[in-house]
């Protein structure tokens, strides 16, 4: 009996250690980024980092202004959101409010497949299919451009918006829909005035999640967006995102300990902060707008 209890106790401690790995991971991420970032800021002033409008660490004269990379990241994110948010939300409304069982049985797997396709495949699709189409439509489109990558990132994040928003709308009690129908609402009015407002917090959270994924998306932009850090809002030009830069440096052979290799950790830190901010915003939204059904 005592032996059994001892085993129970030892196992409990070991399992606690396993569960603690997640916390250790977070700490390790912060410290591994922080270590190299601090070394980086010993050589480059933080003011230059956030105000210089040129990012050319691999070329002479070297400039270390992160703004062009942030700009590229935000350009991709904005473009992707323009696709994923309306189409994702529309698909969610269709699935939750209009589709019959048979239609849903076709649509759900389509979304699941889209969600399961690795991002490298979307990158290929952007470069090999989307870009040539764009070039045919608008001839001055660069072979590497923000628009093509944005579209692919947007497609990739549609399922995220769609399935989370659908779950939220499904959770709205039918009694509310019936109450609105019973005083003469059209379907459009029920959806836009009752269902969507009732599910708003989770819908907004799904938008934030999609935005956060777009910020951190790497392979699509590495393949299709180009590698020219630029302060531009023109989606037809070649740009570079934070993630794209990190990949570019990693694929080359910059000597370890050099300023060039440290730049990726400083850039990674900025990326981590941006996605962390999105996580926090999403938590706040869910807290603030939470509607409680009995």
């Amino acid at each position, binding site marked *: 009996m005592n032996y059994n209890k001892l085993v129970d106790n030892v196992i409990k401690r070991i399992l606690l250690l396993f569960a603690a790995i*997640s916390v250790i991971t977070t700490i390790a991420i912060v410290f591994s980024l922080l270590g*190299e970032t601090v070394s980086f800021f010993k050589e480059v002033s933080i003011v230059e980092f956030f105000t210089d409008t040129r990012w050319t660490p691999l070329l002479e004269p070297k400039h270390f202004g992160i703004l062009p990379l942030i700009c590229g990241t935000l350009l991709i994110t904005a473009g992707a959101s323009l696709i994923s948010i309306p189409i994702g939300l529309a698909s969610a409304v269709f699935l939750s409010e209009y589709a019959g069982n048979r239609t849903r049985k076709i649509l759900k797997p389509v979304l699941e497949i889209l969600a399961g396709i690795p991002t490298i495949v979307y990158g*290929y699709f952007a470069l*090999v299919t989307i870009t040539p189409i764009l070039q045919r439509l608008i001839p001055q489109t660069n072979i590497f451009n923000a628009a093509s990558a944005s579209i692919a990132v947007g497609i990739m994040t549609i399922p995220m918006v769609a399935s989370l928003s659908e779950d939220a709308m499904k959770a709205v009690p039918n009694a509310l829909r019936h109450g609105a129908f019973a005083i003469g609402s059209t379907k459009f009015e029920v959806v836009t005035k009752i269902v969507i407002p009732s599910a708003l917090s989770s819908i907004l959270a799904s938008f934030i999640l999609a935005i956060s994924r777009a910020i951190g998306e790497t392979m699509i932009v590495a393949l299709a967006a180009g590698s020219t850090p630029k302060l531009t809002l023109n989606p037809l030009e070649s740009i570079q995102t934070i993630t794209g830069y990190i990949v570019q440096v990693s694929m080359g052979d910059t000597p370890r300990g050099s300023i060039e290799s440290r730049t990726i950790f400083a850039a990674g830190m900025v990326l981590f902060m941006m996605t962390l901010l999105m996580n926090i915003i999403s938590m706040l939204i869910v807290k603030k707008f939470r509607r409680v059904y009995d």
Partner: protein
Amino acid sequence: MSINTTNMKSRKLKSQIFYAIILICTLTTIAVLAALLISVFSKSIGWLNWNFLSSLPSRFPAKSGIKAGILGTLWVIGLTAIISFPLGIGAAIYLEEYSKKGWLKELIQINISNLAGVPSIIYGMLGLAVFVRQWGFGRSILSGALTMTILILPVLIVAAQEAIRSVPSSMRHGSYALGATQWQTITGVVLPYASSGILTGTILAIARAIGETAPMIMVGAAAFISFVPGGIMDSFTTIPLQIYSWTGKPQAEFQNVAAAGIVVLLAVLLLINSIAIILRNKYQDRVKS
């Protein structure tokens, strides 16, 4: 004060236009998936053959093969599975069965959901800084697998937690009533009942790792490997990494090679997902009966 209903026509029109827009958006999604699959499959025709599956990378498109990528993926994912299964299931057991409600559980749980939102390339940087450099494992399969483990652990833990949570507490009480300890109850009752659910969730988490590219670039998987890995300290390449390298090459023919690589990757994913779905159906049948 009477309310007019003269707006009926425009309201009904609005409702119909709305439906049309919703429908078009939804159909767009299906069309895009079709376009993507057609684009990949049509380009891979003529390139996906035994020669492709059994050759190592080459400078010439026609001679390029995915053998090193397939074996590298198998090594990395196999090792990832071996490391992450016990860790993830153990952590889930702790959170569901042992930990009491309180700050510690809350902290771990918030942490896990936060980690799920961290971009995969950041995990790659962690792997580079810790496994490759600090622990001195270099650009090896081991570094790759450890990085993948850290990456999929949050998803894996959550999936295993859900499976464990679905075990009715009456079953646990039945075991305790016979004088079993907690660990005996877990191994004797909880895990057998939750096993196929855990397996399904963990397999799906592993499937995600197979397609991950960015973290493997960070830990230094090489695109050009002219040998087959023989141990966990060997350098390696993976299927997605091969696709990346071929897609980025200037010769147009390499795009076809990349398409063939994508078909192989999708086939692997389809296989693994099918296994998970079969397990899930089995599991649902048992819960129903």
